[in-house]
């Protein structure tokens, strides 16, 4: 029997729990030559400020052991070009689209939401309150519970659509931040955004990125992401969407077990443009193999400790 991957976030029903993560999937259209956008649970498009945005100077990328540090700086086309040029094509592709909302200040988040609220074809907003690459020293609203709660509350009040708050891992207590997002009225939280990082060229004694600091993603961050999803899921009643280094169906299953109701696939899209559909298929195969009827049955089922084994 084919396992049932359908996923209910309460405010949104998904074909399967696999979403494409913002910043790794362009505006979605870059991937239509490889896959059907309707085959995955949904896509979270690249972060949108109100106007077009230049982004950071290059070099913007450094590959590290099993990971990637980026400092793109949210270069993008802005909401007007997105609504005019991109959104009609995404509607035609029958994709479930979540817009990733950015702002230089709280007012801009609200302006972006008010503009997008007038457009059709969006399922929800993911508030990017956690990008480490747009202010000095990785500062962002998701570093403090008060700023998280207040910004989420303002956006929620302004929005006719559900709000997912995307959280930062660069905090002391993720449970406290997740609870603050819930208190602000978030319909869900997604985590983790990238880990604030530094790569150095020892020979020249210079940072490898023009921006000096960047955000680490990829398989290297998965254990940290799993830990934070586990902690956040224990702290809130709203759905948790997990992400960080997922490259396989079994990785996705681990996030569900840790307490995520859905997952986002990020950096893996760069290596394998069909990663999202492959991971959905692999999750289905995993469930079939393990005799699990519905992938939702995996959510929050982490057992007791003590089953570690040495890798050979």
């Amino acid at each position, binding site marked *: 029997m084919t396992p049932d991957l359908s996923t209910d976030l309460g405010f949104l029903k998904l074909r399967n729990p696999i979403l494409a993560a913002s910043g790794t999937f362009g505006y979605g259209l870059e*991937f239509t030559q490889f896959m059907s956008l309707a085959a995955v649970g949904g896509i979270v498009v690249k972060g949108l400020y109100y106007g077009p945005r*230049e982004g950071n100077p*290059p070099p*913007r990328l450094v*590959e590290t*052991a099993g990971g990637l540090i980026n400092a793109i700086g949210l*270069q993008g086309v802005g909401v007007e070009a997105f609504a005019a040029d991109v959104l009609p094509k995404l509607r035609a592709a029958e994709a479930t689209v979540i817009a990733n909302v950015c702002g230089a200040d709280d007012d801009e988040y609200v302006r972006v939401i008010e503009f997008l609220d007038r457009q059709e074809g969006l399922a929800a907003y993911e508030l990017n309150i956690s990008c480490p690459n747009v202010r000095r020293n990785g500062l962002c609203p998701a570093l403090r519970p008060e700023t998280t709660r207040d910004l989420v509350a303002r956006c929620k009040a302004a929005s006719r659509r559900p709000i997912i708050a995307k959280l930062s891992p660069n905090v002391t207590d993720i449970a406290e931040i997740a609870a603050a997002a819930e208190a602000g009225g978030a319909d869900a939280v997604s985590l983790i955004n990238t880990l604030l990082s530094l790569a150095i060229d020892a020979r020249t004694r210079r940072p490898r990125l023009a921006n000096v600091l960047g955000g680490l993603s990829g398989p290297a961050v998965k254990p940290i992401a799993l830990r934070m999803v586990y902690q956040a899921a224990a702290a809130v009643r709203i759905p948790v969407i997990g992400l960080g280094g997922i*490259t396989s169906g079994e990785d996705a299953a681990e996030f569900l077990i840790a307490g995520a109701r859905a997952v986002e696939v990020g950096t893996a899209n760069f290596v394998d*443009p069909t990663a999202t559909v492959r991971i959905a298929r692999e999750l289905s195969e995993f469930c079939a193999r393990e005799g699990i009827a519905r992938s939702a049955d995996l959510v929050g089922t982490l057992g007791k400790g003590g089953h570690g084994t040495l890798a050979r």
Partner: protein
Amino acid sequence: MRQEPAARIALRQSWDDYVLLRLEAPDVAAEARPGQFLMVRVGETLDPLLRRPISLHAREGGSLEIFFQVAGRGTALLAEKEEGETLDILGPLGRGFDLEADFHGRRAVLVGGGRGIAPLFYLGRELRAKGADVKVLYGGRSLRDLPVRDKFAADGLDIACATDDGSFGRPGFVTGLLEAEIARRAPDALFVCGPDPMMRAAAGIAAAGRIPAQISLESLMGCGFGACWGCVKRIVRGDGGRWRKICEDGPVFPAGEILWEGAE
């Protein structure tokens, strides 16, 4: 563009740290044009994580040749691949050289520095097929940096070489060879690929001589198909210059569109 998860390596040649691989990939080859590139997985594990951008060196029927220099961990792993093994490739990517113009009877000069010679073999053959009079200028630090020099001559392409240390051909930079070539007979079009300082100098020479030049830029890339926005350079298109993606808008640009680093 397509993904070919198992392109068989039909031929491998190497010269010190330069490597040529011929890959059997008929579907990718059928869509390929000079100046385009492949994103190549260098291993099957998660480290190194990213594919590597490698430019197309030649098309031989249903096969594509790539030519590269070992420049880091990824290319070192790629250099260890043997004939009969397979590679996971994505391509062809990028826009390649603009060959829309009528090149019949036109004089095209191709300038390559080091591993930047890679796309110029494919391009030289294509231009010749379009009736162009093709001259290739190939520069490197030393004789050992000109491993494919005989391949051009064997294919009937007119080639001249320069080495920084004078061990082969004209002593000095390949741009010296270019200036001499222009003085001898002005070309109608220049095509350039090599290290940034060389391309920048060649762009200056082209501008001074009012010769249209196409420059193939190199960049670190996260994905190769426009999703990551990691490979940008400053490109001017009537807008004072914006960060544009090398993978999607390039890697080949008219020389006049490139704002070189430090030139702002």
